């Protein structure tokens, strides 16, 4: 199984990216979603929908970012092990 990386601050993304294998999944939540609007990252990123919308970032997301609901979040946890938090 591949690893699920949770990032809850933009400043933690760089260190996470350095340590995430290609087959791992990165999910941005809370303030981490700001990275979905600012940094140009060349791998797919998931971002929690309510966090994106609350911050007014819906129209500012990079193309490689897909929105995820909390239901999606649970499914990602089912399909990955371990779950690593970056802050």
């Amino acid at each position: 199984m591949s690893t699920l990386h949770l990032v809850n601050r933009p400043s933690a993304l760089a260190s996470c990216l350095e340590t995430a294998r290609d087959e791992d999944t990165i999910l941005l939540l809370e303030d981490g979603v700001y990275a979905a609007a600012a940094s140009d990252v060349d791998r797919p990123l998931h971002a929690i929908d309510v966090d994106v919308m609350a911050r007014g970032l819906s129209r500012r997301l990079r193309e490689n970012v897909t929105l995820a609901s909390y239901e999606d979040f649970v499914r990602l946890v089912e399909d990955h092990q371990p779950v690593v938090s970056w802050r």
Partner: protein
Amino acid sequence: MKLAIAVHGPPWNSESSASACRFIHAALDAGHDIVRVFFYHDGARAGDALAVTPQDEASVLDRWVRLHEEHGIELAVCIAAALKRGILNEEERERYGKAAASLHPAFQIVGLGQLTDAMIEADRTITFAA
């Protein structure tokens, strides 16, 4: 899946408590079980019965209490993290001769081993960082 949840951020000054509540609701809806929610670091403050939620904000404490009362979710606050942050039950209040207890009854004060124990029993451990 059996899930162990760790909450590291305080309820008013980070979103980790609110995010953890949302995740738990979605996990229960998907048929998963929560072994235990373990509140560590500033997360221990989630159990503070004295906090007053401003009217224009949702009360995270109410959401934790409802999860406990409606789904029997165990809300475990680490004793070392709690004492340092003024989170006391009646027993600790007496032990340290403090004027009052601040822990909400839906929460219980436990030792650090309960986190390791939850990780052992669970299929996944998810931390909602500070």
